[in-house]
């Protein structure tokens, strides 16, 4: 869990200066323009960690997740699993080690297949073991995920939202992957069901030694689940540190604003005013300098011209001029 114990072994998942650029059409006769959805992300996830990835919609979280899963090609930089670049692997090899859990359990399960077939599919695709053993493996997985055996022959529409998400989890885990990418795993679920799924994810992590990348906009969930957190803004990680530090002493003004916007169930505190302008910048025309300067309450002149560099303070990294001692000294 703690970074010190795992620093000797290579991180189970690592990205190095990852870029993903889309060419976006502007109009029929106008030239295409590049959109940097992921703009240089370097992250390390060690075994057993839960990395929380937070950011507003449109900041590139999901594109990043798709690259990790091998569903989207990075335009530059690479993803490494146990120190090996994924470009050396086939799609199939990647999917044996990294599996996704998606947001919406209503659309991520094929409505025409039974639960048993859905969970068995990864086993048959990868030809794991003897087909006669599949049913046993699947039922064991279902049991682990809290699904009763009788739903084996049911169809997704016969299950509740929480149960469907359990099916999605069972399907992801039946291959015994090392890393699970959870893209908003509970945001489509009701409060009482959400806590069940979060508990299940925690239990499975302990039991199977899983590593999670947890993408969520719900900061309370991230604080509860994650061991370290990366805050993303316009394709870049603007702050990354362990969960305690991030929630206790956020460094980047964007992180501060995000934390201030969290509505905890404490009556009488009123709704905070995060002081962020409403305008999320257009990613096709990102602002010059620090991309956050248009909304930053602590903006300085230098922010408008020079993009901040990555600064490491006490084990956390932050991209903000406010924390750049060299700059402030000059």
């Amino acid at each position, binding site marked *: 869990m703690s970074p010190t114990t795992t620093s000797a072994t290579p991180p189970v998942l690592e990205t190095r200066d990852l870029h993903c650029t889309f060419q976006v059409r502007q109009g029929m006769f106008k030239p295409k323009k590049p959109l940097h959805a992921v703009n240089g992300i370097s992250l390390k996830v060690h075994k057993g960690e839960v990395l929380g990835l937070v950011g*507003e*919609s449109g900041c590139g979280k999901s594109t990043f997740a798709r690259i990790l899963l091998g569903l989207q090609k990075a335009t530059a930089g690479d993803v490494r699993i146990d120190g090996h670049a994924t470009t050396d692997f086939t799609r199939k090899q990647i999917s044996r080690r990294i599996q996704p859990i998606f947001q919406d359990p209503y659309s991520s399960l094929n409505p025409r297949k039974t639960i048993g077939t859905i969970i068995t599919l990864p086993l048959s695709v990868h030809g794991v073991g003897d087909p006669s053993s599949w049913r046993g493996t699947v039922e064991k997985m279902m049991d682990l995920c809290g699904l009763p055996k009788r739903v084996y022959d049911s169809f997704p529409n016969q299950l*509740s*939202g*929480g149960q469907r998400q359990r099916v999605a989890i069972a399907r992801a885990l039946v291959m015994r992957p090392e890393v699970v990418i959870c893209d908003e795993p509970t945001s489509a679920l*009701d*409060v*009482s069901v*959400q*806590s*069940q799924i*979060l*508990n299940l994810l*925690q*239990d499975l992590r302990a039991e199977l030694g899983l590593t999670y990348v947890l993408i969520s*906009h*719900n*900061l*309370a*969930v991230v*604080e*509860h*689940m994650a061991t370290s957190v990366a805050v993303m803004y316009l394709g870049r990680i603007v702050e990354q540190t362990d*969960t305690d530090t991030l*929630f206790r002493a956020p460094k980047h003004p964007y992180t501060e*604003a*995000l934390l*201030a*916007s*969290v*509505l*905890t*169930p*404490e*009556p*009488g*505190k*009123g*709704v*905070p*005013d*995060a002081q*962020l302008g*409403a*305008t*999320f910048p257009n990613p096709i025309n990102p602002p010059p300098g620090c991309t956050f300067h248009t909304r930053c309450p602590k903006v300085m002149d230098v922010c408008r011209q020079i993009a901040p560099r990555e600064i490491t303070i006490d084990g956390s990294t932050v991209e903000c001029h406010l924390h750049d001692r060299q700059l402030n000294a000059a």
Partner: protein
Amino acid sequence: MAALLEVENLRVDIPLGAGDLHAVRGISFHVDRGETLCIVGESGCGKSLTSLSLMGLLPPKAVRQADKLFFDGIDLTQASQGKMSDIRGNRMAMIFQEPMTSLNPAYTIGNQLEEALLRHQKVSGKEARERAIHLLEKVGITGAASRLGQYPHQLSGGLRQRVMIAMALMCGPELILADEPTTALDVTIQAQILHLMIELQKEFGMGMILITHDLGIVARVADRVAVMYAGQIVESGTVNEVFDNPMHPYTQGLLRCIPVPGKTRRGEPLGSIPGIVPSLIGKIEGCAFANRCRYTFQDCLTTDVPLAETSPGRGYRCLLSDQQCLENAKEVA
């Protein structure tokens, strides 16, 4: 002074092949001017149908009955279609959940904003336009005049929701019904929109019914809270009463389910409510929560549980005595 909206024993039934679906099963509440009532509950508990039934926007099949349904002294159960049309959008306005789908993609923002005002009040096109610009500025949209000619797809989600709010305010309504107004939005935008709604509500002295499943929003926005479960209000009271001393086992369970930074220990299992919401088709016997409740005893399964009022406006629907409930609540904290 009489309440702005008074609802007594409101029922909504939807006839289905297998029997009637009792979506809303006799709920009573009231909203005063300048006050926010939050209706909180999980999906399928009937909170959205409640708001639609107040607006007279239920699907044609659904049957609405109520002992009392008064909006500013007007009996809505007796109001004709024409009368409802005059009230709806004019004195009572609604903000829907999905700003992506509830704006018409084929009309400009300006068109859609001005439409309601031109329909309800004797104003010129120019006046309507001015009002639209004024309100867009009010909800924090810059360059309001140029926005009027834009189509919904040209706006971001946050801006669209602001347009929805401006639209609801066009005729200066006395009551706003907001159904999950910020569910589709980012946390930063959510805080801004809620902040804005409260400000506008105070400024215009409107009554507001806010429907949500997010207890965080309820705690921060509500004056009074009604917790709905399976078509009934299972607990109601002021926001402090409900959050500090939840009486109904369902409310207690809900509050245990959400991680609270600083309060729940990281990584520790969260509380949960096992089981699922019962079917509301056909006859429902006993307490609807009995199959998921930790404290169920024999009587729960057979007795219809009345709403026990402990003080005016404060009540809960449970057979356990106050003392037992309070002990449970302590367990929560």
